[in-house]
């Protein structure tokens, strides 16, 4: 039986997605070595200048190197994506397994809370929360993380509801295992694959969310950059200096597309029905 990874790499688009992501992660990790200039150095006299040898992707309104800012911005954008993804996954797993496994009033309470969360558009919720707490890297991260757990919780709850009826769970219970042991050792590991797919898709949407926040000025604050904040600054000069908005826009698009391709690939690779079929 081919491993998940092998099956993933048979999926061409997923492979492309994975490679793009690896490149982006590489760029983010090694930004200080890759960046041709200090991302905070201003050259006011060279405001909005197009690509040149010293500034391969041109300069922003303050004359800062856009390539360098994008490399450093990749750190912000990707780490918000990953970390907020991890936070929401963590919260989602806790909430979803409590609700699914224990049922009863715990289930009722958690699911109603989740529904309340879902009735409010996430973007508005995040903006309101950021406006209260004040925009910063950490607050954006935590707020996005805490506001996107509901999807995980719902999926996980559904999975657990079906798995906990399976004979092997009953066997474990008959054997005298504690609830926690059953949940952690027997139930959860069997529900993870849909979650993994969700994470990749969720990271992509978190990156978009962060970009939108930064676009509106609620995200990463100057002098730090994220792709969204550079894009936002470029919007005002879209006619006179299109390079400012174009490059970060392409980066956002690539990252989100890559995560989505990878997510699709993972879904196929992890699909238990396909595994059984082979």
């Amino acid at each position, binding site marked *: 039986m081919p491993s998940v990874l092998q099956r993933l790499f048979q999926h061409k688009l997923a492979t492309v997605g994975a490679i793009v992501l690896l490149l982006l992660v590489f760029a983010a990790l090694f930004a200080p070595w890759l960046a041709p200039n200090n991302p*905070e*150095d*201003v050259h*006011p*006299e060279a*405001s909005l200048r197009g690509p040149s040898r010293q500034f391969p992707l041109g300069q922003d*309104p*303050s*004359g*800062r190197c856009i390539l360098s800012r994008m490399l450093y911005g990749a750190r912000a954008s990707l780490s918000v994506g990953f970390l907020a993804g991890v936070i929401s996954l963590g919260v989602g797993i806790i909430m979803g397994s409590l609700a699914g496994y224990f049922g009863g009033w715990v289930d009722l309470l958690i699911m109603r809370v989740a529904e309340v969360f879902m009735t409010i558009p996430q973007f508005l919720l995040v903006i309101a929360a950021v406006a209260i707490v004040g925009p910063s890297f950490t607050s954006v991260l935590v707020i996005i993380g805490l506001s996107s757990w509901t999807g995980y919780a719902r999926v996980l709850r559904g999975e657990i509801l079906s798995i906990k009826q399976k004979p092997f769970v009953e066997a474990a219970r008959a054997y005298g295992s504690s609830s926690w042991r059953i949940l952690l050792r027997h139930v959860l590991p069997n529900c993870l694959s849909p979650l993994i797919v969700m994470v990749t898709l969720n990271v992509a949407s978190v990156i978009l969310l962060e970009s939108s926040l930064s676009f509106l*000025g609620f995200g990463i*604050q*100057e*002098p730090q950059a994220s792709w969204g904040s550079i894009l936002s*600054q470029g919007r*005002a*000069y879209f006619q*006179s200096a299109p390079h400012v908005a174009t490059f970060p826009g392409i980066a956002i698009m690539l990252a989100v597309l890559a995560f989505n391709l990878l997510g699709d690939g993972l879904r196929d690779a992890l699909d238990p029905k396909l595994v059984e079929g082979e």
Partner: protein
Amino acid sequence: MKRLVVLLIALSLLLTGCGGGGAKTSDTFIYALDADIVNLLPVKLTNVVSTTVSTQIHEPLVKYEDTYDEFVPKLATEWSMDPSGLSWTFKLRTGVTWHDGEPFTSEDVKYTYETLLDPATKSVRRANYQIIKSIETPDEHTVVFHLSEPHGPFLDKMSQVPIMAKHHVSKVGLDDYNSKAIGTGPFMMVEWIPDDHVTLKANPNYWGGKPAIENVIFKPIPEASVRAMALQKGEVHFASGLTAEDFEKVLDKGNVQGIVVDSLAFAYFGHNNRNPLFADKRVRQALAYAIDGESIVNDVRKGAAIVSVGPISPTNAVWFNPNVKQYPYDPEKAKELLAQAGWQVGSDGFLTKDGKTFSFSVILAAGDEVMRNQAVLIQKWLKDVGVDLKLEFLDWSVMNDRLDNREYEAMMLSMTPSPDPDQFNYWHSTAIDNGFNDWCYSNVQVDRLLEQGRRETDPAARKAIYDEVQAILAEDVAAVFLYHPKVLGGLNKNFTGMTEGPAGQAPLLYKVKPVK
């Protein structure tokens, strides 16, 4: 007037302009406003957009027209102050009629000022006029103002209140006046369609002669880029408050003539002087040395500004004092001054003193790209000398609350003073709680001079007083003065004669003529 007013004034200065009818006949002039009018009632004028329209309909006793140092007679033809400085007598123009044909008399002047001073009117401008103790009307064409103390800027104050018709306003009331406005001015109200347009037509019986253009249409167009496009296409004949980039593009087309106005506004980086961080004068001077005002003027404003040394612009030549301490960009000097003030470079590159990092945040309005760009530069320049500046971009409503409550370590804005140097409302310590002293600046010597300058009526003596005020403000770095913006506008070449009045004053549309 509140801060919003100041903002609107600044904005509308940017935006005032007029357009000539490209598509329409050449006797209709279309003028792009940056917002819809709010209230045309002369005693309730609070923003430049409303003032722009209202002053075409109504006229004050005297007015600044082409220069900042001379009052032009409008509804008053002669005026004099008695030697004590406690009363002013105005001789009114004879033969002037309101738009409905009724004669204009001294009763109208008295009524206007009494309405302004009546607390029930709730005019935000009332506080500025409380020096008026009583108003007498010995005959139909004479008005005498009695003051509680001599007041240097009295004529300046008179220039800011257009006169309204007693017989009309007492009938129609103060509310809902806009479309019923009646004045003595060169243009008469035709209609106001909210958020769409205001139409005026020439007053055939204007005492100064019927204006050359028959109709004026004011169109509110809030987006600067849309105004620029409308001007380029000839949809409006005058638009202003254009960005430097748009301005160049519009002029390239050849059907528009550029109109650049040096505004009296001053843009600043304002630290909160109440904050102990800025208590040491050397620290404030270091901030001034660390910020490159010239680069902001050339690179951010693209030359559309004048480097500033204080709150009075060199354009206001009569009152401007060039001999004040200046702070050319000099980061080394800034570091030196900060070191003298006891700030040491810490391990993270930022300055520390008594275990605290030199870090503060500046609030500024979100959405203004020019402000943002200059803030980014200032942040970097301050970082270069070891100061950690954080930028807080705020929505206007939040920003206003923070300003009203003086809740900030620093703020970046601009103010538009009137041509008279009496900036009591900006720099006097009582204006911290009851005025526009957003810098929370307090200096007994400046307080005394400002009080003295207001009471003084001899121009030469006032000049000496305000020269000293400017020198102290600069030496003290009451704020880091950045620049005086130029307002970029354009006039369709089918029209000529467009002049914007001096800063804060409305454009003089009665001077506009169609070409040919």
